[in-house]
């Protein structure tokens, strides 16, 4: 237990599914535009999880019209309305930065199947 847990626990989210590097996820982001709130979905692969505790964050990478886009979200951020894990990734390392140099089929992450 950390000494700052007194403060951290009220911000900690317990509604998130388990996820790890390589997973394909759908991040439902709350976007406030001209006073109105709507949900924007960011779908891609988790290529890294950084930090620990309340400050932990993950980076999601997707290809948008041939251009790679990465967004980093704090795990416990209230702007994430929902996090869906679509596919579990079968990867051998924690940081998948090598995906940045790859395109097309080579940039695919193998899916982990339970057998």
């Amino acid at each position, binding site marked *: 237990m950390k*000494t700052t847990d007194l403060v951290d626990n009220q911000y900690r989210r317990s509604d998130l599914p388990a996820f790890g590097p390589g997973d394909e996820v759908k991040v439902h982001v709350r976007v406030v535009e001209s006073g109105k709130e709507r949900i924007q979905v960011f779908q891609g692969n988790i290529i890294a999880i950084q930090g620990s*505790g*309340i400050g932990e964050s993950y980076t999601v990478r997707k290809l948008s019209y041939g251009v790679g886009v990465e967004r980093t979200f704090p795990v416990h951020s209230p702007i994430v309305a929902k996090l869906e894990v679509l596919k579990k990734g079968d990867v051998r390392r924690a940081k998948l930065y090598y995906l940045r140099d790859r395109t097309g089929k080579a940039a695919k992450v193998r899916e982990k199947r339970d057998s």
Partner: protein
Amino acid sequence: MAQKAIVGEKVGMTQVWAEDNRVVPVTVLRVEPARVVQVKTNESDGYAAVQVTYGQKDANKLTKPEAGHFDKAGVAPGKRLVELRLDSVDGFSVGQEIAVDTLAAGELVDVTAVSRGKGFAGGMKRHNFSGQGASHGNHKHHRAPGSIGSCSFPGRVFKGLRMAGHMGHEQVTTLNLEVVQADLERGLLLVKGSVPGPNGGVVIVRNAVKGK
């Protein structure tokens, strides 16, 4: 000088989310209700301050002078005695409790504490000297300060020249930190940004003297 002050202990740093869903870095301070042990006034002591204590201390562990001091005030003994200098001590009386709610969220405060001791530190760490080259034939002088003066005139090193020496473990005040939350129930004060000293160190929080 400050109008209100409070004493607490540094717990550590973390982050909270503000209303607009932005992350705010905060330092958590544990502020137990402080009990006034002595009120010092201009007439009696030459300056205005309240001497307070907080927490609990076993009465057996007090020295006799301490025990007598607490007895005279009729206040339960606490962890330590801390003096809070104030503009005026009107309205303070012995035995009165000062809690976190004297400060409110959004207020600017100055935080005073004893900084972390760094021991005997060289010029690069202590005064941000540049040091010397890593190569070009340099030998054993990579972190040396360089010249400290001239030759036979003046024939001495000037007083106050910045050199290696003891660093840290001195009183430091950080000005104009914003109060993020003052939680009376749990006795916590959340201050935006960092605060001098190690976790567990004693800090004095006063309302800002320079901020608006």
